[in-house]
């Protein structure tokens, strides 16, 4: 646990915000910064750090900082972290939580404190149905990703499709959407469990089913050993997953040979083809190409920074700022505008397919809307 705020300058009541600008505000970054699924989240954290660094260079007299909340992607840790974020009065907005399960745990706390959040990657549709006004989603949800993944699979012309999910808030939701859209093509389905290591029973079912394509709803942590065991058992068909497997760990843990040809869909355009100077800036800062959701997290962080730059210094002000926001992001090019439930304007949602080639994720194509 890092130390809490060292600078505790009390502003003396809430009414005197016009006298001078409130400085040293913080933007929280909430997600798995360590753990097996950190590959999905750390590029976004790097991008958020970069956005703040750029902002501080221009506003040296009144700086903003990023406060990291490392949930390891676990819902059971998210509640406590949400409380500590809420209790830090300097935190006026949150980028994240990155995953759906932890969002379900953390959002009620944020809602109670009126702390606005914009998630860069939690895609479970029901998150926007809970009446949390503070919840905003910076990408499309699984109602867009599921059918897109299904239409990609249909494009492979499989005779039978096997669907597996990990029973998580995200994985099960996405797999259900895919099943709905594929209809009778789905010949069988099964469920994995969190932390599962031995997949021999599912692998046997998949190979015996004669399916030539498999959709996996879940995260890298289980997807990677599962795919490897499938390949070891001689499964030659397609392996398609959602954005939960679209990270660098999927490549390095599964290994070049076995991951080759695996497909990940993502409601995100390739970060490496982001607009403006984002890609060059990121490359210069971290000596690496921007990873998954880096561009989105960058834009979302900049929205909070813009609000702070305009003198919004309370959670309520920033919440109001988000409600009426309607501008394109510098890196993703997506116009950020939210519905009253906090969903990204549907016309802005696009889903891409990425294919593992030679040990790297290569953008395959934007999946056309059905």
């Amino acid at each position, binding site marked *: 646990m890092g130390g809490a705020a060292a600078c505790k300058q009390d502003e003396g009541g809430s009414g005197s915000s016009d006298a001078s600008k409130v400085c040293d505000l913080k933007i929280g970054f909430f997600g798995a910064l360590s753990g097996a699924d950190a590959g999905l989240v750390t590029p976004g954290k790097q991008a958020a750090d970069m956005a703040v660094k750029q902002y501080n260079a221009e506003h040296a007299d009144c700086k903003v900082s990023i406060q990291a909340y490392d949930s390891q992607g676990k819902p059971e840790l998210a509640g406590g972290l949400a409380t500590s974020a809420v209790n830090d009065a300097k935190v006026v907005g949150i980028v994240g939580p990155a995953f759906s399960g932890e969002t379900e745990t953390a959002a009620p706390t944020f809602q109670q404190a009126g702390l606005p959040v914009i998630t860069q990657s939690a895609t479970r549709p029901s998150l926007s149905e809970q009446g949390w006004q503070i919840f905003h989603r910076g990408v499309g949800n699984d109602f867009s990703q599921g059918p897109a993944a299904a239409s990609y699979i249909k494009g492979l012309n499989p005779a039978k499709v096997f669907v597996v999910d990990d029973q998580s808030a995200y994985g099960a939701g996405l797999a259900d959407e895919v099943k709905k859209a594929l209809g009778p093509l789905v010949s069988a389905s099964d469920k994995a469990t969190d*932390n*599962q290591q031995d997949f021999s029973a*599912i*692998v046997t079912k998949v190979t015996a089913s004669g399916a030539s394509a498999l959709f996996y709803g879940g995260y890298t942590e289980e997807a*990677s050993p599962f795919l490897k065991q499938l390949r070891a058992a001689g499964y030659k068909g397609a392996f398609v997953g959602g954005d939960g497997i679209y990270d660098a760990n999927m490549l390095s843990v*599964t290994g070049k040979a076995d991951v080759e040809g695996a497909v990940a869909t993502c409601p995100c355009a390739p970060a490496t083809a982001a607009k403006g100077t984002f890609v060059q800036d990121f490359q210069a800062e971290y000596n690496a190409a921007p990873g998954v959701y880096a561009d989105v997290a960058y834009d979302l962080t900049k929205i909070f920074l813009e609000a702070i730059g305009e003198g919004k210094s309370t959670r309520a002000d920033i919440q109001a700022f988000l409600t009426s926001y309607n501008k394109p992001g510098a890196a993703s090019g997506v116009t950020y505008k939210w519905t009253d439930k906090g969903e990204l304007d549907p016309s802005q949602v696009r889903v891409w397919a990425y294919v593992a080639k030679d040990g790297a994720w290569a953008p395959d194509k934007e999946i056309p809307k059905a």
Partner: protein
Amino acid sequence: MNELINGFPVLTVTGLTQGAIYALIALGYTLVYGVLRLINFAHSDVFMIGTFGAIWTWSAFGLDASSARPSLGEALGLIVLAIVVAALLCGFFAMLVEITAYRPLRARNAPPLAFLITAIGASFVLSEGMGAFTNRRQFGVPAMLPTEPVVTLGGWSLTPLQISTLAVAVIAMVSLDWFVQRTRFGRGIRAVAQDANTAALMGVNKNRVILLVFLIGGLMAGVAAVMSDMKAASTRFNVGFLIGLKAFAAAVLGGIGNLRGAALGGILLGLVENYGSAVFGTNFRDFIGFLVLILLLMFRPTGLLGESLGRARA
């Protein structure tokens, strides 16, 4: 049900393989219980350290998940080396746990509850320590043995990995059985298991026997760790928990304190889990496994083969 019938040969072979891994880990629980009447919860994390030991060994040769499959001869050499390293590493940590977490308590006649807490404590220290040390990352296992089946007969087939896992497990278990039943050290272990105080009067060094028991349990866990690495294809700091729980269940199923029982329990659990997942779906895997455990214990409270490490023989 169709899935069980169609996949029966494959489910049996993969279940046996997984069961052999459970059995190897179960030996460590059962040995320690037989001698100390203590459930060594840290054993699962000793196993986890072994899974990393193997990966570190292979990465010392420049191998990671993406490297090309080595030739069969090289692979066998690398596997044997990894087994040696992982077994020694696990043996070392198992003894370390005994010396730091249990021995001082025995010396002060601590109540059983204190042992339970230090056992759980040692388990967390090992797994969370490894978690912090590896940044809780997941590590892929390099490709080792070819995956094409080498023996095929009807619907039955065996891959090199399955053959070697079963062979290694059988060799390890037979030698352990021989060691405990036929050697002087083994007689010491059985003597302490039967009656520690009398054994001490007869000149058996109790603490040395206990240390030996932890060492053997650790060595077996190290062997299991390498086989499990190659089967599961990845590891991380918390892999010990579930597999350790299963192995412990296997030990109880066979009759805790009974070496042959642990082997039988492990293999039975591996098979039941696989058949159960085929019939009811994989989300019922642990449900079925543990349901069978409860049912069997209802009728045979001491496990399938009963508790018998201390049973007198030669």
